[in-house]
């Protein structure tokens, strides 16, 4: 029963917090640009405003997939929160749950891909194409991380990995994970799929109203999920310290990432693919080290 309550609290926390921290990030970026920036609650206002707007569907679209896709993506990321604790250290653990989390994240990309193509818009097609290429490369990198973690801990259950033991391989894996997390959060230089000046919002171009709100919300939730996963790997088991650490971490990490993002320009998709290919070398290296248990 305890776990169920913890899970419910965690999910609600994630839902409330994800747009809020996005507002904080926007504020930080604005300050770096010497602007005042919108208030922190602005992202929440935006989502609520979108809920009130009308939903328009293009006439070339396939309705069944078009209307389901944003919700599927949203729900699949939300369900991943059942297995990754946020503010309270309780979740539904089971063997192989880390694989399920990876699959759910991949699934959200796949379903957005389907949604984009179901709209029939040429910009959505270009954007979805880029999104899928990025997702495949991210999966390859995540596969190395998951595999190395499994070898390191001789298990595939997340609660055995929260937290990780302090070893050379853990440190390398965590650093590697941070890079992959940055890429998977669709931040500049990797916001290639939605590049506004280039392809006018890409996969989301035909979505409006509640659907667009869901699409954006999914990205915010995904970012917090990845951040929470990282924090779980490093925070101690003691409940009090963990909660304090988590609250600090889940504020500081996005702030740092936002500051990095403000100082970078966008990459091209082929440059990004090549970059991630080179990263996978680190992945192999990390796995080898984990194999020897260092």
């Amino acid at each position, binding site marked *: 029963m305890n776990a169920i309550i913890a899970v419910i609290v965690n999910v609600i926390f994630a839902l409330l917090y994800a747009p809020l921290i996005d507002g904080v990030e926007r504020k930080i*970026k604005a300050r770096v*640009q010497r602007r005042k920036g919108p208030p922190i609650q602005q992202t929440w206002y935006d989502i609520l405003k979108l809920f009130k707007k009308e939903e328009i569907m293009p006439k070339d679209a396939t309705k069944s997939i078009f209307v389901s896709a944003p919700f599927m993506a949203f729900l699949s990321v939300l369900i991943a929160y059942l297995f990754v604790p946020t503010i309270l250290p309780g979740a539904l653990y089971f063997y192989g749950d880390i694989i399920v989390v990876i699959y759910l994240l991949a699934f959200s990309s796949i379903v957005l891909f389907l949604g984009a193509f179901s709209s029939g818009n040429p*910009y959505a097609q270009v954007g979805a*194409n*880029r999104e899928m290429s990025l997702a495949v490369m991210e999966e390859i990198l995540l596969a190395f991380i998951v595999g190395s973690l499994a070898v390191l801990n001789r298990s595939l259950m997340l609660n055995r990995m929260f937290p990780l033991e302090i070893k050379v391989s853990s440190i390398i894996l965590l650093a590697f994970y941070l890079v992959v997390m940055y890429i998977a959060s669709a931040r500049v230089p990797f916001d290639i799929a939605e590049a506004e000046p280039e392809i*006018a919002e890409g996969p989301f171009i035909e979505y409006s109203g509640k659907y667009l709100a869901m699409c954006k919300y999914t990205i915010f939730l995904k970012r917090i999920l990845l951040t929470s996963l990282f924090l779980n790997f490093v925070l101690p088991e003691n409940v009090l310290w963990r909660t304090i650490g988590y609250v600090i971490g889940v504020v500081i990490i996005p702030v740092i990432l936002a500051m990095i993002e403000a100082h970078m320009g966008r990459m*091209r998709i082929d440059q990004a693919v090549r970059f991630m290919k080179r990263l996978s070398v680190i992945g192999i290296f990390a796995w080898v080290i984990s194999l020897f248990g260092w």
Partner: protein
Amino acid sequence: MQDIKRVIEENNGKIVVEHDYFLLVEVSREHVRKLARTLFEAGAYYSTGVGSDERPRNGFFAMYHILNHEESKKYIVLKVEAPEHDLRIPSITPEIEGANWAEREAHDVLGIVFEGHPEPERLILPDDWPEGVYPLRKDFKYNEKVKPVRKEEKFIEREDALVLPLGPFHPTLHEPEYFEIYVDGETIAGARYKGFFIHRGLEKLAEGRLTIHQIPFVAERICGICGYTHMICYCQAVENAIELEVPERAEYIRTLLLEIERIHSHILWFGVVYHLLGFDTGFMHAWRIREKVMDIAEMLTGNRKTYGMSLVGGVRRDIDEDKKEKTLKALREVSQEMKKLFNDVLAMKEILNRIEDVGILPKDRARSIGVVGPVARGSGINTDVRKDHPYAAYKYLDFKVPVYNGCDVLSRYLVRADEIFESIYLIEQVLDQMPGGDIMVERFEVPEFSVGVGATEAPRGEDVHFVITHRGSKVYRWRPRAPTYNNLPSVPVMLEGEHLADAPAIIGSIDPCFSCTDHVTIVDDSTGKILFRGPLEDAIRRLKR
């Protein structure tokens, strides 16, 4: 100088007017092509072309081809005439690529048929304009309403690429234009461009309603960024036509304001480019710095942008001495901050990767298309109207013209960066050397039917105005040719084979000012040639992978 005159006379050209600035050469229809070709080979490039209905005067239609021969520091205007019943002139486009649009425009508005033109398509008139109605003819009233004609448009669908319509409402464009980009995966296989969404019929307006002294204010409103250049260019065209000398102080004031406009235009461009590359922080900082320049302009003229300072014969208002200090101080700050911004950005690898070796325009192609300004200087061509045909106070001032040989977006970037600092240096000289005296010539005669060419170096390149005066303070023909007009045909050339993601940066690298412009071209990527209708249709029909 003598050489070029000899070349002209040897090729059946008759020099009828000789100014400091330009030569007006009459040539017959049979010889115009050869003469044009010879002049091109002698180093001139095609600046623009103007069609004119001169039937009330001598019963002929005329086509003026304006070429810029930097070496002899002269504009060479070739005038070819054709009677109304035989309204055909041989096209010089096969000889000089750059004449393409000018001839098509003349056809659109006057009905002159250019024989041998490879692509006699409609250029500036809207799709639903009826055939056979030529708005710039003298018998067409400026406020005449025309009934639109429905036309069935065939939409292109390519078998080997995705057709991506870019515009007229696209986040990357700041004005309505239409680029149809054919994308294979992420590579651009070809591009089609259609413009003139905001053609406002200013030329007809000038002939019909406006006087010679009102046109400067209309000219200033041609562009949202470089309006003052147009104003000056027009004034210079008229002043050249009637051989009017403007007082020195007025020249200096004009120079001062022109350079301020150049600075703010370039900084604006940098902000836009950073935004297109995803680096919004750079965009915000650049525009913040630009505000200081706008404040200077407001202090000097009373307006941030539309200065309203110039008239034929001089400038309208004077500059206070005590504003000098404030101007210099602000410019120093701008210089420092821009230097810092540039250094920071050039250290960012991912930005450099997006603009280096991207959007290549080879030098010879640049010459034959006739590109101007930073686009030309970024491809290794040393051309600048301020040096080649010195106007205003430039003949007294010292400055460098930055030329880079990279032929890519980075080169054009560096050209504009250097120009900002050169402009600041120029302003310092102007404020230092400004003489006293009048700022305006109050009375002057305007003889009828004088031809004048005015040219300035706008932030975007060479801006040319062509004027033929008329009796009673009117204008017989006025043709403003903005620099982007000459630069746009190079965009499809630069786009071919590039990544789709680079398209906004490439289009942006010519600093397009569509308000000034509006015309059309189609290019095929695989052969690199500007395609005309026949080959284009064949290319589309061919089932190739």
